[in-house]
């Protein structure tokens, strides 16, 4: 097997409040293989975005990484100086956030932002950068690229801006693209366009992708493999088809049942998980999900289940659901 593009081991992040540390991420471990799309799914506050921020080393106090190794194509990012890390961001890791204005400078033209990014990271002349920028604007499906090149961000629609952010994230030819809720702020028809674009570019460039979303539908269509987050930990990881077809962790199953969908005979069903995810500093002992779990027994209240390594479909649960054998 080839070396993973991204290898995260035992990543932990704490939030400091009144001199005490509260866990925000706890022992997060996963790999992304070359060309793979790994989906990070979970609810607000589960730690999926925090994982992305920790990887690109943009944590600011009161948040702090306390343990973990992060390797990008074999190079340890957690040991890099702040200065060298700046060269990794944007060049070797591109990112797309939910709000395109987070990534765009409101006072610079789109063309300037694209050419600046490319020339910072690639050996290009001004003319070459301009040519490539126009090519990128065409590639991300924008009509009239020369006009968009000269435009300021506020002159464009939300969907157009998100296309530009995708171009900005990929134009320096990164090893890894981190897309954090890239379609959440968009309407359903625009969302399908954006997912199609991400998929096409992923197929063309072969860039590995970490796709952070709360939307299981987006996961089902886009991800090769999935890591499910709950209260700062990865509680299940599996190839997408197996995770959706036969989840092992009761929380994953609950998340799926909470998504309104028609059942086999076409009747709509939705089933809520009782209670709420514990907040930072309010983690119960044992398994963080046990107060909401129908299957919980004594051991779940006392000991935290590790993420079992069961060869590709792993769950942090003492009493996982039985995976049905698909013949």
């Amino acid at each position: 097997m080839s070396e993973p593009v991204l290898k995260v081991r035992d990543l932990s992040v704490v939030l400091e409040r009144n001199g005490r540390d509260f866990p925000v991420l706890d022992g997060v471990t996963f790999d992304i293989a070359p060309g793979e799309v790994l989906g990070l799914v979970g609810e607000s506050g589960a730690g999926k975005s925090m994982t992305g921020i920790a990887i690109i080393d943009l944590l600011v106090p009161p948040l702090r990484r306390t343990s973990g190794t992060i390797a990008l194509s074999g190079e340890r990012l957690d040991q890099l100086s702040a200065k060298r890390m700046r060269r990794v961001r944007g060049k070797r890791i591109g990112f797309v956030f939910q709000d395109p204005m987070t990534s765009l400078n409101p006072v610079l033209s789109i063309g300037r932002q694209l050419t600046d990014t490319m020339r910072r990271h690639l050996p290009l002349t001004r003319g070459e950068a301009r040519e490539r920028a126009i090519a990128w604007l065409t590639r991300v499906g924008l009509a009239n690229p020369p006009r968009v090149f000269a435009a300021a961000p506020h002159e464009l629609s939300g969907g157009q801006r998100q296309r530009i952010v995708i171009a900005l994230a990929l134009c320096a030819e990164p090893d890894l693209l981190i897309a954090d809720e890239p379609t959440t702020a968009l309407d359903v028809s625009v969302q399908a366009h954006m997912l199609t674009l991400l998929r096409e570019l992923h197929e063309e460039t072969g860039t590995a992708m970490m796709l952070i979303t709360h939307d299981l539908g987006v996961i089902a269509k886009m991800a090769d493999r999935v890591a499910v987050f709950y209260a700062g930990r990865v509680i299940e990881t599996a190839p997408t088809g197996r995770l959706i077809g036969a989840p092992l962790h009761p929380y994953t199953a609950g998340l799926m049942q909470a998504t309104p969908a028609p059942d086999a005979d076409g009747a709509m069903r939705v089933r809520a998980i009782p209670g709420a995810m514990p907040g930072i500093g309010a983690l119960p002992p044992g398994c963080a999900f046990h107060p909401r779990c129908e299957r919980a027994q004594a051991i779940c209240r006392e000991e935290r289940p590790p993420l079992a390594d069961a060869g590709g479909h792993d769950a942090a649960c003492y009493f996982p659901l039985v995976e049905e054998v698909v013949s």
Partner: protein
Amino acid sequence: MSLDDVLILNAVSKAYGGRASMIEKAFGRRPKGLQAVREVSFTIRKGEVMGLVGESGCGKSTIARMAAGLLAPTGGEIGRNAAMREQMIFQDPFSSLNPRWRVRDIVAEPIRTHRLRPKKAIDERVAELLRQVGLSPEDGAKFPQAFSGGQRQRISIARALAGEPDFLILDEPTSALDVSVQAQILDLLRGFQAELHLTSLFITHNLPVVRLMADRIGVVYLGELVELAPTETIFHRPRHPYTRLLIDAAPDLDATDRSLHPIPGDLPDPSDPPSGCVFRTRCPFANERCAAERPELRTVETGQVRCHYDLDLSQRAAA
């Protein structure tokens, strides 16, 4: 208006702008108005949940606000029962609750405004409502900031129910919530629906949510109601091409079929809508007639549709 009709919209329109500014007058330019809602008609019957679905900017929230009497239409008429009490639940539970009021005062306000209970019975009624929405009476002493988004939406629901409404308008009530919290709120709303036989107008961009909640669904595109039919009919036998494409565009949970189905083209500028049928610029079936002639809202056996043609759209369009 029959006794069973709670609300009737008859060719209701809402236009913004359109009044010439000084500069436009000086230069003799025609003002650029915006037709947010155009000739929308439907009737909500007692006890039913009517859903309105569409993308942002399509005019569905404007329709909701006119239905609630918060906005006056610029054309058409709205008929409502004068004795009817309405309550509204909004999308953003962070801005719809007054941060300076305690929860018990927020919930008690409609009771006081409409004088629904004697003064000394108000506290007990508020406690009862808080219990019904899954909060505790002690929560009444806190301020909204102490609560999560889902809990705030429970407070909004308690406040709406406190007004003992005959008619409830819900504008994207779960869109700001996580899926597991959304499921709890939908459960809660469905419980009240069954128990109180509430008539409601449920507005959302989320098709599975409206399919779960509504008896009938109206589909809105660029300010127009393009289709109206019973919920399951909309999903099994849509009559308008936009309805079909909207259903296909949302990614479902099927990981074995990874095809994506974007709606072709972009949303036109609402201040400069296409001639004829508003959807024709994105419609795979459009022809010259669609550009020349605006389709009427026709009554068909399944409901109503604003399309010139009887298309068989029961199958998903090829990818």
